[in-house]
């Protein structure tokens, strides 16, 4: 608002600490620097480029699917990936990959957003539906089992859907929009649950390297505040489910001490798992070939129940039974919470 000498611009707001030419428009939570919009775009994109390069996330010629939900993180990720790929000649073939659960009305807005992204960023879009992947839409599942247990289905089916869609697209990797706040939240949740296996994995920038399709998180060190502010326009997103207490706790911490988010990620990374801790062994599902530590993967157990008309099969008090190792299940958590 240069044209308008408002109290905000004439008064306390300083010049950008990077270019020292323009009024600052944002305070970076990571560094507390006050910077202008132009410099912000620059440092935001450069930092993500550095993370990609330093962690060797991609190789030239790879096919990469961007997990696209229509929400803010994946929308910004799609834009930044397309932009960096072009600017720095990564040589990647990029695709948008969306999952349609088949819930009436639920995905309409977000699929519209993703379709817009397809055109705006020139990225081919693949939408995989639950109906295609599992033979059941989420609406049909809810009709069968009621609303009470559908979070179990939601979580298990959604996690596999992205992998199965990625397999259909024949991509080498999937990138997701998980940001620094997400990862800090997951560190805290995994500590509270005492889930050593997930704690060890959740801070890794790339996961599933032993599986068919690795996943990586270029926004691992990117603060949510900056992702939200990046477009300087909010009309582009479709809001999703509300998040839980751990997320609020993160935001409370951020207000007191903005660095806290990075510190939590750091402490999560520093938890190295002693070799004596027994980790669940990875195998593959006898039915569908998906990675599973059990005879059948969770999706196949749930599907078996649905197809036999016994939808409660596989849903125990603590989530899904059929666990070879007595790992505590967290699959009963609410839709929209995080998993890696």
């Amino acid at each position: 608002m240069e044209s308008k000498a408002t109290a905000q611009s004439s008064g306390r707001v300083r010049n950008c600490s990077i270019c020292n030419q323009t009024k600052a428009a944002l305070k970076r939570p990571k560094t507390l620097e006050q910077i202008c919009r132009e410099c912000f775009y620059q440092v935001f994109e450069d930092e993500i480029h550095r993370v990609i390069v330093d962690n060797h996330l991609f190789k030239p010629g790879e096919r990469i699917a961007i997990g696209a939900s229509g929400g803010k993180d994946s929308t910004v990720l799609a834009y930044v990936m397309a932009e960096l790929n072009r600017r720095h000649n990564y040589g990647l073939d990029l695709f948008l990959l969306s999952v349609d659960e088949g819930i009436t009305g639920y995905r309409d807005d977000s699929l519209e957003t993703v379709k817009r992204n397809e055109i705006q960023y020139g990225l081919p879009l693949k939408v995989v539906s639950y109906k295609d992947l599992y033979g059941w839409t989420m609406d049909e599942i809810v009709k069968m089992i009621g609303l009470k247990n559908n979070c179990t289905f939601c979580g298990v089916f959604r996690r596999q859907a992205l992998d199965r869609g990625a397999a259909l697209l024949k991509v080498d990797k999937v990138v997701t929009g998980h940001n620094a706040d997400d990862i800090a939240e997951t560190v805290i949740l995994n500590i509270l649950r005492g889930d050593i296996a997930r704690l060890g994995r959740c801070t890794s920038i790339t996961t599933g390297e032993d599986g068919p399709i690795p996943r990586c998180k270029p926004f691992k060190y990117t603060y949510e505040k900056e992702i939200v502010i990046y477009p300087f326009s909010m009309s582009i997103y479709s809001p999703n489910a509300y998040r839980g207490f751990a997320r609020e706790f993160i935001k409370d911490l951020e207000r007191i001490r903005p660095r806290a988010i990075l510190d939590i990620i750091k402490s999560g990374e520093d938890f190295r798992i002693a070799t004596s801790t027994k980790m669940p062994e990875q195998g593959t599902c006898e039915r569908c070939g998906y990675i599973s530590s059990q005879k059948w993967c969770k999706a196949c157990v749930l599907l078996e129940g649905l197809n036999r008309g016994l939808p409660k099969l596989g849903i125990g008090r603590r989530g899904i039974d059929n666990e070879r190792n007595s790992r505590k299940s967290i699959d009963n958590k609410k839709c929209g919470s995080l998993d890696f």
Partner: protein
Amino acid sequence: MKLTLEFGGGLELLCDSVKIHNVDVDQKDVEEKLTMKDLLVWVGKNLIKERPEMFMKGDTVRPGVLVLVNDCDWELSGQLDTLLEEKDVVVFISTLHGG
């Protein structure tokens, strides 16, 4: 004082799912400038129809709600003490709704 208020990231759901509100905020005293603190009280009374705790915590917005005054992070303009002027645009975005 005429202001444009925008709600995003799910906050619009708290005010009848309307994202953009062109409002006229009455001031008791023309001499006294309107601050963000005053505006938040006004918004709480006049626009937020449900779950006010999703918007406010104590006398300020709850952590995770970003505020931009004329496209500038309100952390730079003094947060609650930010002075508002005619035709200012104030944006509230929740980051607590997922991505």
